[in-house]
């Protein structure tokens, strides 16, 4: 158990921030203010927060399509994230990326990929760079249970293992890929069992327990910094929302029981950490209420910032295609 009260409270704070951010995003989709796809992270917050708090500020991370939580957990700016969701020029990617593609290279958030497992080689490449330069940075690479079946996933784990690269592969096993349960499509009982094939540690963690995630990832980070190579951490978790907002209109057949969702809500990561803080006398109910209000206000302010921000101008459409620009046909 963790003695550091400040850290324990920060865990709850970041989870609240992610929860409110995503609740806001879902509402914006429902109201039609946010266009395109949104994959909510609600229920899974402990995985990103536990993992990212085990990193240093100059460590790197990569995310996936369900990735509002990862950059917020890594210390990203919710205003720029919200502005990006609304396609505004003040967004992280000046409105070119949207919900699935937040990135903040200034604090090591190397981007998120809408293509499953596609960012894993990027993570491994960043780790390779740190090794070539003799730095001590590590990389956390987040991916889902569904993505674990992509061939790229196996290639990158093997590559990271043979070169002993400082990567922490964090599999967020929320047990479904859209509507397909992982037990139907993964040959081993746990995804972390595959670590044996790459001769690296594989650890199954209660992904609803932010402290357990923090501890498991911290151990992997320490190994990585010592030059002992990558680890595979499987955070067993659950998503409450459908795969993406508005999916219910497409997927009409039930694929999971209401009781299952109800059960996992009793293991809500925020609830668990909240109770723990109170039990350990690290925070009072009143202090937590204040923190909740502050995080809600932060999200409200971010939304206001995003709403007031301008859309990108039409002439920006060709911007940033290249770093060293070349003439291109603009007709």
């Amino acid at each position: 158990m963790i003695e550091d009260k400040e850290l324990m409270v920060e865990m709850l704070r970041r989870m609240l921030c992610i929860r409110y951010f995503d609740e806001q995003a879902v509402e914006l989709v429902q109201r039609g203010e946010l266009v395109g796809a949104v994959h909510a992270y609600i229920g899974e917050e402990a995985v990103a927060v536990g993992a990212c708090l085990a990193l240093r500020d100059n460590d790197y991370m990569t995310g996936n399509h369900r990735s509002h939580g990862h950059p917020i957990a890594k210390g990203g700016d919710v205003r720029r994230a919200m502005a990006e969701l609304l396609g505004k020029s003040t967004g992280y990617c000046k409105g070119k990326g949207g919900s699935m593609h937040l990135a903040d290279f200034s604090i090591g958030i190397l981007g998120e990929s809408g293509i499953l497992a596609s960012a894993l080689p990027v993570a491994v490449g960043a780790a390779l760079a740190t090794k070539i330069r003799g730095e001590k940075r590590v990389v956390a690479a987040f991916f889902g249970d569904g993505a674990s079946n992509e061939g790229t996933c196996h290639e990158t784990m093997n590559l990271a293992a043979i070169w002993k690269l400082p990567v922490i592969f964090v599999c967020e096993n929320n047990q479904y890929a859209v509507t397909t349960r992982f037990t139907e499509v993964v040959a081993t009982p746990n995804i972390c069992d595959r670590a044996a094939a790459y001769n690296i540690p594989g650890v199954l963690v209660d992904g609803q327990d932010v402290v357990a995630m923090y501890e498991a990832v911290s151990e992997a980070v320490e190994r990585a910094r010592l030059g002992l190579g990558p680890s595979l951490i499987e955070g067993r978790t659950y998503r409450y929302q459908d795969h993406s907002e508005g999916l219910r209109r497409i997927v009409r057949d039930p694929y999971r029981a209401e009781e299952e969702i109800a059960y996992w809500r009793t293991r809500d990561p925020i609830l668990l950490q909240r109770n723990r803080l109170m039990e350990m006398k690290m925070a009072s109910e009143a202090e937590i209420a204040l923190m909740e209000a502050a995080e809600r206000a932060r999200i409200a302010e971010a939304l206001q910032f995003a709403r007031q921000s301008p859309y990108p101008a039409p002439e920006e459409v060709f911007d940033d295609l290249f770093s060293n620009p070349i003439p291109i046909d603009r007709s």
Partner: protein
Amino acid sequence: MAVITFADALNQAIKEEMRRDKSVFIMGESIRGGIYGVTGGLSQEFEAMRVLDTPLSESAFMGAAVGAAAVGLRPIISSLSSFYWVAMDQMVSQAAKMTYMFGGQVRLPIVYRAGMTYGNNIAAHHSDRPHPMFMNMPGLKIVMPTTPADAKGLLKTAIRDDDPVIFFEDNTLMGARGDVPEDMDFLIPFGVADVKQAGTDVTVVALGGMLPRALAAAVQLKGEGISVEVVDPRTLVPLDKQAILDSVAKTGRLVVVDMAHKTCSAASEIAAMVSQEGFWNLRAPIQRVASLNVHFPFSPALEKLVFPNEEKIIAAVKRTLE
């Protein structure tokens, strides 16, 4: 100046740039053993971490180049064109799109060396010339040198460029010899075509290994009183449109020779561009000479039918004069 081969010119470019800039490193399959000549000597000269033999995992290492570049290194990838299919997601979803999609936050100085080995009886799986497919994908720069000097100058420019560059090396040219400058800063800018031979009657734009064939065709046509101007675009993205349009303005006739399959080839793009922007200078329909729209068959009896040769170029030039 020294007369060296195309392969040695590439080797020189890589060595010089690796000496000049510590952030340059190279990786690929069995490159430490100097496979294909081009990477010869690198493992002897540079630290092990800068000359990496990878597992046969193209997605992993071609994508790792993106990650390494994103945090400030300048990777060079060595592979063959046909193996890029295996890593296509990394090339497209990551290398090509990342800078734009993340709003210009990241520079990706990567050189993807892509050898093309068509025409030597190695059958369809190893004979790809996929440059047009990559031209269709914004965010990639595409280079295809024809002479040893161009190979060196363009590769050095590619390594110093801050964007992903696919550097197509036509293996039919590897043994070609030519004068190559020894200057450390011998750079050939992207987007500047080179008129490899001046002429007045017909413009022939020829890519990579098509260039020697076009020059040979030009010699033969000269004997028949036809003066051919041979233009080498050198880079396809960016394309030196003006050089091609200027040549067509002079000759009024255009033949484009491309080793890719004809449909949606680079030749198609160049033909479309000239018909849109140089139409009033044309005196005859544009001719595309490209590989047939079929896979490369193994049998020597069949393979030679598929890709462009001197005869096909000569016939196309004559069609513009009918």
